[in-house]
């Protein structure tokens, strides 16, 4: 009985543990005050990706295009391979503007998801609220659109952004094939929804 009670208590504490604790990170103090996401920071570059969106059993492709047009100001467009615009958004100082969206996609719930996902993708500079470490890996906590986000760095390279709720990862932005400040492969995975976006640089 005592073993059962201890097991339940152990599971309870693990379940309630913070996201960094679950990943075996320990809190540290640091002089770093900002998180830098460098992947969409070059105003001279057109970021063009072949995109695939798997959403609720449907899959469709297109081109995902991002341009930094000023300080904290990004424009992003999704088109079909044949060039028809599906959506066209701006994110300026985390404020989301819709320039165009196909009528069939003009749904509040979808727009909220895209706003959250794309703001996390392109926001370059965020204030660190907590800092954690595990060997050479660091995890920096910050708030973005009032939601807790963790930025996971390995050898000073941003590898993953995790949006969490109650200590659990809800959405992951994963950066791969990084060359300098350019992530050639990006995945946005929703753990609580059948929704995944995959971007591969052209």
């Amino acid at each position: 009985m005592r073993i059962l009670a201890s097991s339940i208590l152990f599971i309870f504490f693990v379940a309630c543990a913070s996201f960094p604790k679950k990943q075996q990170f320990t809190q540290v103090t640091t002089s770093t005050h900002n998180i830098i996401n460098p992947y969409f920071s070059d105003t001279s570059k057109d970021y063009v990706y072949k995109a695939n969106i798997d959403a609720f059993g449907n899959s469709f492709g297109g081109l995902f295009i991002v341009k930094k047009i000023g300080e904290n100001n990004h424009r992003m467009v999704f088109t079909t391979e044949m060039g028809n615009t599906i959506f066209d958004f701006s994110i300026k100082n985390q404020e989301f503007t819709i320039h165009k969206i196909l009528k069939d996609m003009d749904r509040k719930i979808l727009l909220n998801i895209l706003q959250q996902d794309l703001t996390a993708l392109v926001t370059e500079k965020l204030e660190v609220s907590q800092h954690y470490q595990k060997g050479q890996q660091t995890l920096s906590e910050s708030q973005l659109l009032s939601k807790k986000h963790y930025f996971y760095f390995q050898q000073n390279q941003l590898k993953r952004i995790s949006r969490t709720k109650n200590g659990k990862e809800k959405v992951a932005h994963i950066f791969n094939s990084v060359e300098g400040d350019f992530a050639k492969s990006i995945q946005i995975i929703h753990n609580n929804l059948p929704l995944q976006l995959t971007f591969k640089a052209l």
Partner: protein
Amino acid sequence: MSVTEANYLKNKVKSLAGNTQTIKSDFTQYKHIDFLSNDIESKGKLTFKEPDQVKWEYTQPYTYSIIFKDQTVYINDDGNKKNLDVGGNKLFERLNNLIASSIRGDMFNTNEFDMEFFKDGDEQLVHFLPKDPQLSEFINAFHIKFSKIGDVVEVKMIEPSGDYTQIVFSNRTTNQPLSDADFSQ
């Protein structure tokens, strides 16, 4: 362009389109978005068989094909194949007819479009402006450039924002026999 010249062009294109059973052509597509430094360029091959079988096969910088055939859209996205049955979808039917018409340039339908005619050296340019608001939500205008003999050399689809997709055709051959394999996914 004078009214006589415009009518001459119309008749020439219609007659050529009527005698065109198949088309094979290379194409280069330029996607122009105003805020980008450069247009996004892609290349591929177009295959057309009357009345309305069309295959767009992109080979660079990505591998992607889309076939419009028998009220079905067949997509092959880098090996991932997908079919969409669009039978009975009026908008799709119109879109497919429009694509098939624009490849041959035969869009001189006054019920559907307002038209403006221009001369550009040896080439002739027609602006087709959709009258239907359902269509003009996507495309503000089609600009089609014709060669001296009435072949389509370029199609430009302009979106309401002013951004456009320009398709330039090259190595065009017509009325060569095509098999089912030419429209395979």
